[in-house]
C-alpha cells in the first residue's frame, strides 16, 4: 500500500523507502482509530452542512414547488371540469325550460286558433240566422200585408157582387152604402 497510514508504525520502513506491510493483527481497528476522528468530524461537518444548504435552499424548495404546481394544476383542472359540468347542466335545464315554454305557447296558440274559428263560425251562423230571420220577417210582413189587403178587398168585391146580384134579381136601386153596411155586418159575424 503506497498511501500512508495514520497509526504509529510498529515496524521501521523497509529498504528503498517503501513501507513494510503491517500484519492486520498489529493494526488498530480502523473505525476505532482515534487519530482519524478529528479529520472525519471536520470533513463530515463541512460536507453535511454543504448538503444541508443545497437541500434546504435549492433541491427541496424546487421539488416542493413542482409538487405544489402539480397539485394546483390538478385542483384547477378539476374545478374547471366541475364548472363545465355545471354549465352543461344549466344549459340542459334552460333548453328543457324553453322547450316546455314553447310547448305551452303552442298549446295556447292552438287553443286560440280553435276558439277564434269557433267564434267566427258562431258569428257567421248568427249572422246567417239573423239574415234568415229578417228575410222571414219581411216575407211574413208582406204576406200579412197581402192578406190584409186581400181581406180589405173582400168587402168591396162582396158589395159589388151583391149590388150586381141584387140589381139583376130585383132591379131595385138600393144605395151603395146600404149594401156595404150589410156586407160589413155579415162579414163581422
Amino acid at each position, binding site marked *: 500500500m503506497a498511501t500512508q497510514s495514520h497509526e504509529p508504525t510498529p515496524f521501521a520502513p523497509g529498504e528503498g523507502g517503501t513501507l513494510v506491510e503491517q500484519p492486520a493483527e498489529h493494526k488498530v481497528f480502523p*473505525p476505532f482509530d482515534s487519530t482519524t476522528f478529528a479529520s472525519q468530524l471536520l*470533513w*463530515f461537518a463541512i*460536507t*453535511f452542512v454543504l448538503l*444541508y444548504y443545497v437541500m434546504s435552499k*435549492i433541491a427541496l424548495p424546487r*421539488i416542493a414547488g413542482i409538487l405544489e404546481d402539480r397539485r394546483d*394544476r390538478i385542483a384547477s383542472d378539476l374545478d374547471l371540469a366541475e364548472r363545465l359540468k355545471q354549465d352543461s347542466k344549466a344549459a340542459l335545464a334552460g333548453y328543457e325550460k324553453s322547450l316546455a315554454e314553447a310547448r305551452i305557447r303552442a298549446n295556447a296558440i292552438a287553443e286560440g286558433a280553435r276558439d277564434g274559428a269557433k267564434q267566427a263560425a258562431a258569428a257567421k251562423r248568427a249572422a246567417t240566422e239573423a239574415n234568415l230571420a229578417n228575410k222571414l220577417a219581411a216575407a211574413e210582413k208582406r204576406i200579412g200585408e197581402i192578406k190584409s189587403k186581400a181581406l180589405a178587398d173582400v168587402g168591396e168585391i162582396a158589395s159589388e157582387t151583391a149590388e150586381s146580384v141584387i140589381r139583376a134579381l130585383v132591379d131595385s136601386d138600393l144605395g151603395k152604402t146600404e149594401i156595404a153596411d150589410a156586407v160589413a155586418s155579415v162579414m163581422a159575424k
Partner: protein
Amino acid sequence: MATDPINQFQIHTLIPIEVGGVDFSFTNSALFMALTVAGASAFLILSSRGRGLVPTRWQSAAEMTYEFVAGTLRESAGSEGMKFFPFVFSLFIFILFANLLGMFPYFFTVTSHIIVTAAMSMAVILTVLFYGLWLHKLHFFKLFVPSGVPVVLLPFITMIEILSFISRPISLSIRLFANMLAGHITLKVFAGFVVMLSSFGFVGILGAILPLAAAVALTALEFLVAALQAYVFAILTCLYLNDALHPGH
C-alpha cells in the same frame, strides 16, 4: 492483503492538512463524503431541472424520495415537525448515498466509521434537546415523567426513561455503524473464501460455489440493508423530534 476484510475500512490521507498539531487531512473518507454530497445533490437537482408537470423517470424518483421522507416525518412528528424536514431529508439522503456508494467494489463506506454515525446521532439528539428546551423550557423534562403512572413506580419509571433517552444516540449511531461494518466484513470474508478456495484446483473451485452464491445473496441483502438503515435512521430521528415537539407523550 487482498483478502484482509478489515483493510477496506482503512483511512488513507490524500491531502495532508494539519492545524495546531491536529490532523485534519483530506482522506479517502472525506473524498467519499464529498462524493456522497455531490451525488445526492446531483440526483435531486438534475432530476428536478425540467420542473415537469409530468415527471421524467428521474424526477419521479426524486419526488418519491421527497414525499417518502416528508410523509414519514409528518406521520411521526405532525405538521409542526416539517420545519425539520431539510435536516431529516439531508440525513436520509446522506446515509442512503453513502451506503449505496459503499456497495461499489473498492469504494470506501463513510458510514462504516463510528465517528461519522456518532456525529449524525449527536446532531439529532442535540437538536431534540435544545429545540425541546427552547420550545417547552422546563416542561421538556415531562418527557421523563410519563403521566398516569402510580407514584410508587414514578422514580423507577423516570430513571428508565432517562436511561432510554441517553441510550438513544448510542443505539442510533451503533446500529448504522455496526450494520455497515458487519455487512462489508461478511461480504469480504465470503469473497475471500472464493478466491482462496479456487486457488486449490478443481476441488477448490467446486467448493467455492457455495461461498460465491452466499456472496451474491449477501450483496443483494446489503443493498437492502443500505436503504433500510437510512430509513431506520430517518424514522428514529422523526420519532425523537416528535419528543422535542410534544414531550407530554
